[in-house]
């Protein structure tokens, strides 16, 4: 069902975990339809993403796209990170089965949500970034630090 790359990122996901005091964190998805993804970003003074971690509640494709997405944004600046679309993530994974395309959207949205959080905290505006869709179900716990 899945490509070798997907299976590789699923079995050995890169960058799983949390970041203490992250520059930005974004959680997207909806537990009701089975998918939740959270991305943590550590962004330095120059706007470079030094570190990126994730946690995912979802299928094989969701885990693999999370893993690949964190790989792709690491070391990039914010502008470049915005170009990490779901298509870019899928291409990097050698594709996904049609029913699993929506899983890859989560990764893109999660990065945007984390960047939005970063922008809000620092009172800056990121060109081309829109407020992430409020797609999270009520059961979800709001972040507390």
């Amino acid at each position, binding site marked *: 069902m899945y490509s070798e790359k997907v299976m590789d990122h699923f079995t050995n996901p890169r960058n*799983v975990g949390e970041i203490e005091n992250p520059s930005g964190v974004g959680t997207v998805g909806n537990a009701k*339809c089975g998918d939740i993804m959270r991305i943590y970003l550590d962004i330095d003074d120059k706007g470079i993403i030094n570190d990126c971690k994730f*946690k995912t509640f979802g299928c094989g494709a969701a*885990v693999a796209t999370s893993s690949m997405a964190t790989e792709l944004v690491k070391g990039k600046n914010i502008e470049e990170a915005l170009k990490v679309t779901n298509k870019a993530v899928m291409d990097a994974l050698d594709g996904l089965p049609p029913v699993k395309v929506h899983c890859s959207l989560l990764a893109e949205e999660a990065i945007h949500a984390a960047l939005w959080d970063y922008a809000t905290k620092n009172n800056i505006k990121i060109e081309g970034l829109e407020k992430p869709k409020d797609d999270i179900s009520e059961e979800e*716990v709001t972040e507390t630090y």
Partner: protein
Amino acid sequence: MDKKIYLDNAATTATRPEVVEAMLPYFTEMFGNPSSIYEFASQNKKAVDEARTTIANSLNAEISDIYFTAGGSESDNWALIATAEAYASKGKHIITSKIEHHAILHTCEYLEKNGFEVTYIDVDEDGILKLDELKKAIRPTTILISIMFANNEIGTIQPIKEIGEIARENNILFHTDAVQAYGQLNIDVNALNIDMLSASGHKFNGPKGIGFLYIRKGLKLKSFIHGGGQERHRRAGTENVPGIVGLGKAAEIAMATLEERGQKEAALRDMLIQRVLTEIPYARLNGHRAKRLPNNANFSFQFIEGESLLIMLDMQNICASSGSACTSGSLDPSHVLLAIGLPHEIAHGSLRLTLSHNTTEEEINYTVDKIKEIVAKLRSMSPLYEDYVKNNLR
């Protein structure tokens, strides 16, 4: 473990070698069409009759009340659609449950589009039909009650005797989808007041593509597949002789081994349940603890998602499923788990393990060890688990 561990016997089973052996001569040697007039075909006719007799006896049914079909889905469709057509003049109301197999549910939807009304009765948190709701749902126009004998996902066995009595008292026909129960449980269609019963060969170590429908004598049901006069004019199509012979052989073995096999599987299943529930936190057993199929265990693991679990088990050579195989392409959580009251995100994290007579203690222990590891790994990646831990530390 090098060997594959197959724990998905509710999806399908291996055909027993003795069954294949029994089928073989009917492909290349005794291949005649049983409806033919010549001597050569009479062996085949006899073989078909013998299989019919074996199956009738296993249910305490009349021989001529067993009709061969291409499997459980066809049997279910036939029972519902032909009953609806035959008894529409009496009424257009049908009662079923919320946890039926899609072969029943989607056929009910089809009938709803064709002017019938269907009531879907609730089950309790163990998956047992609410009999009081069933009684309340009965109308003067109710022509059929169709309730599965045992559930394919959570293994819960329904109070079939009580349902049969309610149907009989109200003069309503009673069909049961026994696809999961036949060959695992003793069934007496007379003692249980069953008017129609569906079963499928590949669920009890018989071949795929063959099953049967029991139809009590006197019912007005017409055929579902129209054409030649086979099966006493009720099911057209050249008889699948090797399939029927295999079905008969599988039924014979299933009945002969029923008690012993059931005890052995239930013991292993109980060990499995015991270990999982004590060794893995935030795990729950779905379905009734006692009233369940001897080979079925169904768990939910909070904070994790089913597909990831299945793929990781697969990488350890363990075949399992999260519900019915025929919907595994779908992203929706199981309608059965929702019906027993699980919230969506927990329903997503379910695991069904179904044993066979070949399952060993070693396999079960290995499987539990692997589930433990995988669940821990997936939880370490789960934002839901993270939130839960954080909230409970505060």
